[in-house]
C-alpha cells in the first residue's frame, strides 16, 4: 500500500464528509481508503454497483478486469453501461462511468479474461479483490490465485432471484473451493442467460461485496469470513450459513500456504 498522506485536502473533506462522520471511518479511515487499491474482476451485474460504490467512497486506486464487450441484454442489470456503449469493451464504458463520478480516481483497465497465466500478475498489486465474474471456471480460478497470494477477496454468485456471498481471508477461514469443491459439470447448473436474473439481485450483492472491501480495508467490524450470506429475493429472506471453520481444500493446504496461524492483523494490512 502507498504511504498515507497527512490529511484530507479541502475538496476531499467535503467529498467524504459523510464517510468521515461515521465513527468507524473518521479522517484516519478515509485516508486509508484513499491509499487503498481494489481489483474488480467482472464488470457485469455485481461489478457495476461494486465499482460505483468503491469509486464513490474514495478508494484510491481501482483495477477493472473484463474481456467482454457490452451487449444490449446486459443493460437490465449492468448499470455501469448505457445504450450508447453497446459493442465497446466493458472496461472502456466502466472507466467512463467511474471517472465521471470520480475524476481523480486512479483506474487501471485490464480488457482481457483473467487466466491461470495472468491471474497472479494482475491480482498482486491490490489490497482486496472483488470476484464478480459470471462463470464457475473464473470463480475457482480467482479463488485459487487469491489463496496462493494470500489476498483477501469477496465472492458472490447470482441466479434468478437468488444470490450468495462470502468473504475469503486466506489463513482465517474456508475459501470458495473449501466449500464448493469443484466446478459443477457443464450444463448441470443453468447460466443467467438460461435462467435469467433480476437486476436488483446483483445490485444488492455487489453493494455487499463493496461493503466487505471497505470494512476489510478499514480493519473494522465483522466480515463474512466462515459464513455464506444468501438472499432469496422472492421470499425476501437473508440467511447466514455458518461454514466449516477449517480450510481443508487442496489449495488452502498446498505448499507455501500460510496455514491457520500465518497472519495477524498487522501483517494483513501491511501497517
Amino acid at each position, binding site marked *: 500500500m502507498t504511504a498515507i498522506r497527512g490529511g484530507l485536502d479541502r475538496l476531499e473533506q467535503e467529498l467524504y464528509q459523510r464517510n468521515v462522520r461515521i465513527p468507524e471511518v473518521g479522517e484516519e479511515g478515509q485516508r486509508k481508503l484513499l491509499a487503498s487499491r481494489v481489483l474488480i474482476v*467482472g464488470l*457485469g*451485474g*455485481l*461489478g457495476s454497483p461494486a465499482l460505483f460504490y468503491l469509486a464513490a467512497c474514495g478508494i484510491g486506486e481501482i483495477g477493472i478486469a473484463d474481456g467482454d464487450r457490452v451487449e444490449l441484454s446486459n443493460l437490465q442489470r449492468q448499470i455501469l453501461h448505457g445504450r450508447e456503449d453497446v459493442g465497446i469493451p466493458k472496461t472502456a464504458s466502466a472507466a467512463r462511468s467511474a471517472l465521471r463520478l470520480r475524476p481523480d480516481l486512479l483506474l487501471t483497465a485490464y480488457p482481457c479474461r483473467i487466466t491461470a497465466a495472468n491471474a497472479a500478475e494482475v491480482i498482486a498489486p491490490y489490497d482486496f479483490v472483488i470476484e*464478480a*465474474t*459470471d*462463470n*464457475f471456471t473464473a*470463480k475457482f480460478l480467482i479463488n485459487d490465485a487469491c489463496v496462493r497470494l494470500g489476498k483477501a477477496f469477496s465472492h*458472490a*454468485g*447470482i*441466479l434468478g432471484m*437468488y*444470490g*450468495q456471498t462470502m468473504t475469503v481471508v486466506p489463513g482465517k477461514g474456508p475459501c470458495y473451493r*473449501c*466449500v*464448493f*469443491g*469443484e466446478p*459443477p*459439470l457443464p450444463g*448441470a*447448473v443453468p*447460466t*443467467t442467460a438460461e435462467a435469467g*436474473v433480476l437486476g436488483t439481485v*446483483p445490485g444488492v450483492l455487489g453493494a455487499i461485496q463493496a461493503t466487505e472491501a471497505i470494512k476489510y480495508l478499514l480493519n473494522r467490524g465483522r466480515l463474512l469470513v466462515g459464513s*455464506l450470506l*444468501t438472499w432469496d429475493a422472492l421470499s425476501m429472506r437473508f*440467511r447466514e*450459513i*455458518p*461454514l*466449516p*471453520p477449517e480450510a481443508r481444500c487442496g489449495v488452502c493446504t498446498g505448499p507455501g500456504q500460510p496455514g491457520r496461524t500465518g497472519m495477524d492483523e498487522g501483517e494483513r494490512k501491511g501497517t
Partner: protein
Amino acid sequence: MEIRVNGEIRHWERSVTVRELLEGLGIRPETVVVELNLRIVARERVDEEMIAEGDSLEIIRLVGGG
C-alpha cells in the same frame, strides 16, 4: 426422525442418504453442496452419507452468475 434443513425443522419417516433426501425435496444433487453438521459432504459421497435424527443440513445452491 426430526432433522433441520436450511434452518427449518423437517420430519422424515426413516433414515436416508443425502441423495435420497435431496431427491425427496426435488433437488438435483449435482446442483448443490450439502453441509451436514458443519461439514461439507463431498459430491461423490452423497450416496453413502446417511442422515440421522437431530442432524442439521444446509443445502447450498451452486450459482455462477455475476
